[in-house]
């Protein structure tokens, strides 16, 4: 039997609300730390210095080739065996950041490679030093390509954080499991939790749309004369 009463009380349960908040900030902090790390890893993989390329390449291979769940348990439960004892939240953050950065570095790499060579050449010809070329010209254009997949990663990470419940981080899922134990209304409790996740990912979807419009400046613009477009269409026809 489904109980609306139980369902609504779960929706209002401060236990769940606090858990949802933990989920949100874990995701945001992990993403915020993983992104700069991913940029460094992507630069390392593009570097001319072979050892750096090997280390960063090996890191990505390792992180993407093993389950996050295994990584988390190793960090929280396994490392103390070597004398390295990390707190619950620290373990969760370390695991999420290291794992996510490996995936994000691929997105960053694809984004940077998508910027035509002529762009960095024009910037260099103006006299911009390398880091300005990267920050002022390459990165903003790479971002346009990167924002949609980065947004999807954020959406994915919101849900991936459920895994850290296994090392006893009290995020939304674990809090829901606690709450359910008082009345054994499993279906109502987890449905409420699912609704929370849905609300978070939906809100994020709106933020993502806004971000995409922002970084797309100049690109959605149509040529005022339409002449180039017509020429392109002609070329296609004659092919």
């Amino acid at each position: 039997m489904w109980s609306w009463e139980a369902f609504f009380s779960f929706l209002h349960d401060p236990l769940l609300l606090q858990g949802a908040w933990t989920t949100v900030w874990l995701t945001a902090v992990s993403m915020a730390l993983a992104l700069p790390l991913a940029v460094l890893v992507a630069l390392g993989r593009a570097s001319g210095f072979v050892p750096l390329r090997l280390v960063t390449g090996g890191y990505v291979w390792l992180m993407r080739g093993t389950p996050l769940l295994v990584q988390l348990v190793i960090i929280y439960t396994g490392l103390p065996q070597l004398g390295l004892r990390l707190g619950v939240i620290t373990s969760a953050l370390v695991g999420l950041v290291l794992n996510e950065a490996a995936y994000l570095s691929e997105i960053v790499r694809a984004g940077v490679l998508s910027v035509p060579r002529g762009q960095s050449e024009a910037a260099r010809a103006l006299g911009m030093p390398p880091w300005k070329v990267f920050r002022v010209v390459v990165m903003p254009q790479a971002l346009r390509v990167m924002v949609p997949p980065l947004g999807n990663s954020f959406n994915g990470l919101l849900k991936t954080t459920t895994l850290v419940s296994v090392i006893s981080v009290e995020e939304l899922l674990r809090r829901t499991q606690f709450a359910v134990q008082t009345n054994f209304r499993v279906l109502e409790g987890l449905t409420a939790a699912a609704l929370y996740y849905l609300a978070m990912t939906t809100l994020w979807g709106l933020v993502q749309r806004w971000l995409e419009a922002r970084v797309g400046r100049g690109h959605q613009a149509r040529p005022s004369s339409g002449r180039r477009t017509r020429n392109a269409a002609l070329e296609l026809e004659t092919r």
Partner: protein
Amino acid sequence: MTIETVVEAHQVRKSYGDVDVLKGIDLTVRQGEVVLVLGPSGGGKSTFLRTLNHLETPDSGTVTICGERIGYGEKGALRESRIALQRRRTGMVFQQFNLFPNMTALDNVAAGPVHVNRVPRAEARAAAGELLAMVGLADKTGNYPAQLSGGQQQRVAIARALAMRPQLLLFDEPTSALDPEMVGEVLDVMVRLREEGMTMIVVSHEMGFARAAADRVVFISDGVVVEDKSPDLFFAAPEHQRTRQFLDRIL
């Protein structure tokens, strides 16, 4: 009055693998001179132009711009961030314009002063507005490159190069990507720059421009300078077989 040498290239060589693209190019350009570079496709014109601001590192030979050796200091090869400083003297205009698509015309032109010379943005924008007016685009300052025609984009690109107040402008086939009816508006700007005394090296096959605006024509083929003389002499009496064959094909 002394005539200052702006460009001094000496025995510039460059190979890619076992392809010798530049086989020892010499070129001297004095202040205010307009040098037109002609030659068959694949002859090394772009590569040579790019060695002049070290976008391409020569294997050997020297490039000196306004008395400063490009790419090398007293202690040998310079780092890219030091070479960047040297590049401020040289503006470059590309065949494909290479405007920054995410910036308006105004911000494209202001980009150099703002990000290289640290000019305050408002000041750089004001100066950029004047440059855009100078190339006839006063009403397009807020347009993004995608909202401009090819000819307009190339004029923005010229204004962007001028914003750094260069001593020398390099043009690599500035009109080759343009629809024919837009070529004139770009060449007009270049002719005006010549009248204002700008030193320019222009790779182009626009014969009208060669006759009207060039002080010298340099013919580069197979990585060497085959001829280097006034346009009149060049077109009337080309000395070499290779030059005659080339002229027969394009005239």
